[in-house]
């Protein structure tokens, strides 16, 4: 619930309903509480009455039991001749005593309730005395058959005790009866009080409820009625009067404020509509004023366009000195200035173009001479290529010869290798032959040793024979001589054997040396064989390389001939370029002539003739762009004859030129009339090159 500072702090509708409900709840609660309280009180009173009544009943029962006890005792005394107590009497006695014992606590409670506890002080002793007299003494007396005189004290004791008990019990019974009736009365009074209290509380609650309902109902009704009246007024168009109940703090206050918002919104809307109508009128006026201004502007623009048109026509006629003097209106004056600037710039550009044309002319001449030089050099290049080709042919032949030689050498080397292997075999055979010689020498040595041995033994025998002969004296003289001879023979044999031995040993040494030499020869031959194999490999790689060289040379040959062909084509192209550069120079001259028409902004006579188709145009007032296109077309028409002549010059210039520029120029001059010159093919130009 929103609250604003202005509104009164009053209860909202829900709070009002809540107070009503709370009051009703409180009222019913108090009625219920009073009823419950009073009921509990009358219940307590009734309870007390019942207790009193029960006590009265107990006292009565006890009194009857004690009377019965006494009566039985009397009967027993009377029937003492039987000398025993009859069993049914004994049972009754016992039951009565037990009853008395059992009810004694109840009796004490009753006495306390009645406030007569003091009266019960002797009840216990009385009961005990009676019990003793009846159960013990009387029984003994009866069974012993005592005389009648003996029964008197017992009888007195029983009677006395019984009387006292009886009196007490009777008194208690009466007192209890009184108490019970009094309590019942009290309970009744309590219930009456409760009824009255309940009625009073109920009335009070009803009254307060009514007052609350009246109060809240009035408050709500007043607010709603006020609001309804205000809304009716707004509906009928009265927006000035304020809305009622604006200051209330509850829901009705909120509704009133919402209605007030509606009212203010309606007022604002009305004022905005009035403002819109005013602005519409103002805009109408403005529009009319602008239309008038626009007409004036159109008139001014027309005047400016006319002036511009005149100036453009003059420009189209070639007058570059034209300028618009009188100023235009404010907005268009920039256009006039721009036109003047444009004309000025155009004049400037044309003079620049003129200078450039002069430059192009001189460059064209340079190009012409350069192209001539190029042509000459290309011819020389072609000749060099021819020579190169011939030289390559020779080299190819040489390389082929070299290849053949190399192959032959390879073959020879192979044979050499076989020979080397053969000689190796021979060497080994020689070595084995040497070994055999050595073996034979050894054999000879052995034989010589045998001979030497024989010679030695012979010598010894001869010595012994000599000795024997000497001992024989004269008789052995002859024998001694023989022995001497034999000794000499043996010594000669031994000397010869020694000589042979020396010879054999020398020959053995020689053989050994020979074997070594032969082995060295074998090794050398093996090395030669290996080298020959390597030489063979080298030779075959040389042959391979020579073959590859041959192939490469063939390719080079083909490339060179291609190069030759291309050079000849280049020569032809150079001729064409030459012709084109000549034409370019001429074109530059023509362009220079055309530009001279614009000198000083004055249209020259030739230019007037060249631009003849455009002469009709200036009188017509058209846009500058259109007149420009016509002028461009006229220039193109003027340039056309030159362009048409170009192929002729090109064809003429492809003819062979025997010498530099001057001769060519002469030929060119002659070629203009010569239309029968055919377009030369590449081969034709090549032929021309040959001539060159």
């Amino acid at each position: 619930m929103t609250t604003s500072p202005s509104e009164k702090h009053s209860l909202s509708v829900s709070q009002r309903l809540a107070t009503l409900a709370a009051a009703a709840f409180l009222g019913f609660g108090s009625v219920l509480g009073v009823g419950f309280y009073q009921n509990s009180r009358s219940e307590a009173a009734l309870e007390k009455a019942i207790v009193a009544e029960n006590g009265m009943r107990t006292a009565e029962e006890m009194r009857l039991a004690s009377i019965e006890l006494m009566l039985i005792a009397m009967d027993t005394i009377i029937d003492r001749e039987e000398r025993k107590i009859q069993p049914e009497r004994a049972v009754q006695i016992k039951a009565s005593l037990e009853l008395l014992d059992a009810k004694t606590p109840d009796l004490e409670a009753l006495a306390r309730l009645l406030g007569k506890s003091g009266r019960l002080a002797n009840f216990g002793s009385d009961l005990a005395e009676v019990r003793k007299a009846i159960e013990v003494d009387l029984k003994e007396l009866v069974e012993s058959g005592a005389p009648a005189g003996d029964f008197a004290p017992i009888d007195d004791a029983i009677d006395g005790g019984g009387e006292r008990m009886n009196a007490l019990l009777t008194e208690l019974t009466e007192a209890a009866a009184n108490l019970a009736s009094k309590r019942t009365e009290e309970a009744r009074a309590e219930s009456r009080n409760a009824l009255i209290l309940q009625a009073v509380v109920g009335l009070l609650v009803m009254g307060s409820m009514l007052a609350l309902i009246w109060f809240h109902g009035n408050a709500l009704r007043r607010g709603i009625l006020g609001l309804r009246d205000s809304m009716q007024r707004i509906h009928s168009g009265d927006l000035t009067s304020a809305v009622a109940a604006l200051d209330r703090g509850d829901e009705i206050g909120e509704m009133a404020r919402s209605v007030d918002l509606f009212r203010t919104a309606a007022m604002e809307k009305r004022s905005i509509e009035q403002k819109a109508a005013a602005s519409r009128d103002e805009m109408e006026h403005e529009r009319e004023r602008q239309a008038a201004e626009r007409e004036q502007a159109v008139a001014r623009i027309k005047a400016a366009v006319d002036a511009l048109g005149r100036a453009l026509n003059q420009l189209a006629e070639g007058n570059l000195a034209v300028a618009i003097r009188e100023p235009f209106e404010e907005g268009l004056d920039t256009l006039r200035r721009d036109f003047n600037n444009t004309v000025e710039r155009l004049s400037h550009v044309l003079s620049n173009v003129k200078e450039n044309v002069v430059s192009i002319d001189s460059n064209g001449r340079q190009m012409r001479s350069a192209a001539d030089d190029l042509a000459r050099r290309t011819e020389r290049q072609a000749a060099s290529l021819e020579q190169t080709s011939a030289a390559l042919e020779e080299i190819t032949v040489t390389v082929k010869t070299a290849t053949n030689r190399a192959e032959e050498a390879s073959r020879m080397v192979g044979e050499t290798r076989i020979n080397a292997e053969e000689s190796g075999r021979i060497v080994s055979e020689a070595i084995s032959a040497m070994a055999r010689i050595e073996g034979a020498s050894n054999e000879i040595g052995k034989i010589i040793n045998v001979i030497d041995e024989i010679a030695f033994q012979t010598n010894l025998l001869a010595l012994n024979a000599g000795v024997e002969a000497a001992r024989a004296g004269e008789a052995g003289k002859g024998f001694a001589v023989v022995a001497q001879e034999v000794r000499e023979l043996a010594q000669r044999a031994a000397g010869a054997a020694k000589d042979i031995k020396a010879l054999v040993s020398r020959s053995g040494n020689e053989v050994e040396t020979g074997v070594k030499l032969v082995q060295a020869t074998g090794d050398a031959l093996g090395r030669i064989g290996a080298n020959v194999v390597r030489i063979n490999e080298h030779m075959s790689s040389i042959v391979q390389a020579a073959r590859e060289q041959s192939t490469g040379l063939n390719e080079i040959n083909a490339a060179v001939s291609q190069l030759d062909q291309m050079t000849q084509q280049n020569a032809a192209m150079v001729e064409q370029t030459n012709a084109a550069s000549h034409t370019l120079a001429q074109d530059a001259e023509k362009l220079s002539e055309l530009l001279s028409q614009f000198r000083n902004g004055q249209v020259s006579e030739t230019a007037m003739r060249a631009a003849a188709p455009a002469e009709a145009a200036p009188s017509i007032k058209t846009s500058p762009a259109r007149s420009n296109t016509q002028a461009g077309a006229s220039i193109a028409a003027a340039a056309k004859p030159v362009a048409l002549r170009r192929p002729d010059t090109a064809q003429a210039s492809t003819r062979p030129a025997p010498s530099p520029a001057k001769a060519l120029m002469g030929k060119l001059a002659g070629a203009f009339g010569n239309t029968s010159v055919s377009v030369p093919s590449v081969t034709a130009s090549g032929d021309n090159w040959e001539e060159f």
Partner: protein
Amino acid sequence: MSNAIKQSGAYLEIVSFHLGDQEFCIDIMAIREIRGWAPVTPMPHTPPYVLGLINLRGAVIPVIDMACRLGMKMTEPSERSAIIVTDINGKLVGLLVEQVSDMMTIRSEDLQPAPEIIPEAQRAFCRGIVALEKSMVCFLNLDTVIADELAQAA
């Protein structure tokens, strides 16, 4: 024997042999036999020049290295070495020599006595010197060279 040498005009038969570089000779009458080298059987407790014993057709004879006996270095026996079997005072002794070089006949006058500057004990080995054209040959006195030793050995 000494008497025989002193007889003039008498001839002497000698056998020369080599010991190292030197040449010696002995009287041929003392020689019983010349034979080639054969291995010897060594004998214990003998002087170094007594090489040992050999068996000569059943007879056992001692072999003396003459080079060693004459104060030179020991002979190295080879196949060409020879053993000269001599009869010295009736006892057979083998003399090992390097080589038997010659058998010749000389005259008694050719035998010259050894120079007297050599002491007597040493001169007893030599009966004289035979001067030949090329060399000088010492004529050994086998009695002195061998006899003492044989006596000792006996």
